[in-house]
């Protein structure tokens, strides 16, 4: 296992893709901090708006990185060589998962560091209390790690790098869109100070039930998805609205355990040709 990890980190150190995504992350962080500074010329916005956006960027970046980096092991037959050298498949899977998670946490740290380095001197520190901010950071890192586990499951069990890359990128974007939709439906108020006419236009007036409000079993399903899906958690952390922040890391841990167990089971049976 230690040898596998050392080999992965050595390959990482020489990977143009890794240095490219790290540079992209640093650049995006700097851009977000400078944009916030520009917005502060008209009205005060605390650093929180730029600081906590990293899970959104990192989840898109790792959807590209994990299938491309580990997919090369399928096409370059490195996995077969590792198995032939006597490493168990579960160890190969775990080493890849740990490497992917380490990269994503490093990307998060790089983003936060650059936003803090540029943002604090320009607009001041985050307005959130230190304990709450630490909880948000830890929770968001757990959500990113859960997404890593899901992406490793796809990348390790799909031999074609192109298919796993397309599936991961498309999947993450569609999950992010679905997460924003789920959140907007859950946040819809139960009553409106007005009503909707037949043409779907809003007419101000007395409080009336909101047709967009989710009730009953459908709301329960949406609430479960909202705390379980890593992208839903990421959207909540990025908008600094993680009401279930105390519990969400546990759900992330559950996603990591389930997806890793499923991934290892599938990878063990996989025909490596």
């Amino acid at each position, binding site marked *: 296992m230690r040898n596998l990890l050392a080999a992965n980190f050595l390959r990482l150190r020489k990977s143009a893709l890794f240095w490219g995504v790290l540079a992209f992350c640093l650049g995006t962080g700097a851009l977000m901090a400078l944009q916030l500074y520009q917005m502060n010329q*008209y009205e005060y916005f605390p650093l929180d708006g730029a600081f906590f956006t990293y899970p959104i960027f990192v989840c*898109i970046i790792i959807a*590209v990185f994990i*299938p*491309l980096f580990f*997919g090369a092991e399928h096409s370059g037959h490195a996995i077969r060589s590792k198995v032939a050298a006597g490493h168990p498949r579960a160890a190969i899977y775990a080493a890849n998962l740990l490497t992917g998670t380490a990269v994503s946490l490093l990307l998060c740290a790089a983003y936060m560091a650059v936003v803090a380095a540029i943002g604090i001197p320009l607009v001041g520190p985050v307005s959130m209390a230190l304990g709450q901010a630490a909880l948000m950071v830890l929770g968001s890192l757990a959500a990113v790690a859960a997404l890593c586990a899901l992406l490793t499951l796809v990348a390790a069990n799909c031999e074609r*790098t*192109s*298919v*796993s*890359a*397309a599936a991961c*990128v*498309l999947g993450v*974007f569609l999950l992010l869109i679905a997460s924003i939709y789920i959140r907007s439906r859950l946040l819809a108020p139960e009553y409106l100070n007005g009503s*909707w006419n*037949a*043409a*779907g236009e809003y007419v101000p007036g007395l409080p009336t039930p909101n*047709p967009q409000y989710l009730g009953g079993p459908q709301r329960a399903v949406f609430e479960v998805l909202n705390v379980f899906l890593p992208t839903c958690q990421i959207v909540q952390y990025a908008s600094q609205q993680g009401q279930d922040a105390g519990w969400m890391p546990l759900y992330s841990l559950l996603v990591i355990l389930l997806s890793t167990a499923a991934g290892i089971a599938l990878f063990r049976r996989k025909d490596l040709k």
Partner: protein
Amino acid sequence: MTKLLGANFLRLKKSALFWGTLALSFGFGAFMCVTRFREHLDYGFAVSLDSVFFGFAMVAGIVTAPFIPLFFGTEHSDGAIRNKLTVGHSRIAVYFANLITSFAAAVAFFAAYLLACAAVGIPLIGALDLPASATAAALGGSLVMTAAFCAIFTCATMNCSKKAVSAVVCLLGVFTLLLAAVYLNGRLDAPEFITGYEMSINGQVVNAKPEPNPAYLTGMKREVCQFLYDLLPTGQSIQYSNVNFTDPVRLMELAAAVCAAFTGAGAMLFWRKDLK
């Protein structure tokens, strides 16, 4: 060229990716119609087929972005392009045959979506309310916009030997362009004046004075944003899917220009490409 097209269409006919995407397009059309019908039943909204019929324009880029690199990228990895050149086909003919095939596949996806709208939508939510001229303009414009998407993705696919990289580039590119179009749409839709409210003690609005909106774009900035919004195929996607466009001829001209620019650049780069 005819032989190249024949070979491409034969491969298309046997491709699980093509039939899967076709089925997804049909399913998406049916899903949109059923969703509108449920909204009508649950909330009593007046719905018409207009709100879903042009919806494929919104997802045309997302559907073709993975399809084109995955389908044509195989020609790079399997050495099929080199074989085509070895038997005497010119690089330009290979490029155009792939571009035409990708456009034909995209039109088939669009047709599957429209078929679903007609088969499921008309019985549930009725026929189109739009005049024939607006329908023709939206459909024609959507086709030219789809051709622009195909030209962009074919350019990326034919000039990138690694299928996985071209798939990622196309997907990231289309989502980035979509976000850019949504941002531009938001800036252009900002109202010129904001109504300021003053509330009395009992919560009644007593004075509502319109104030200039600092986010409203004027002058050159507005013209540049409008031009970019019209030029981007994703900007056109939003306009066609909402059936909210003022000058379809201008949009078609811009889409044709994008198509010509990317085809010219793509063919030129492919002509010089080292196929190893």
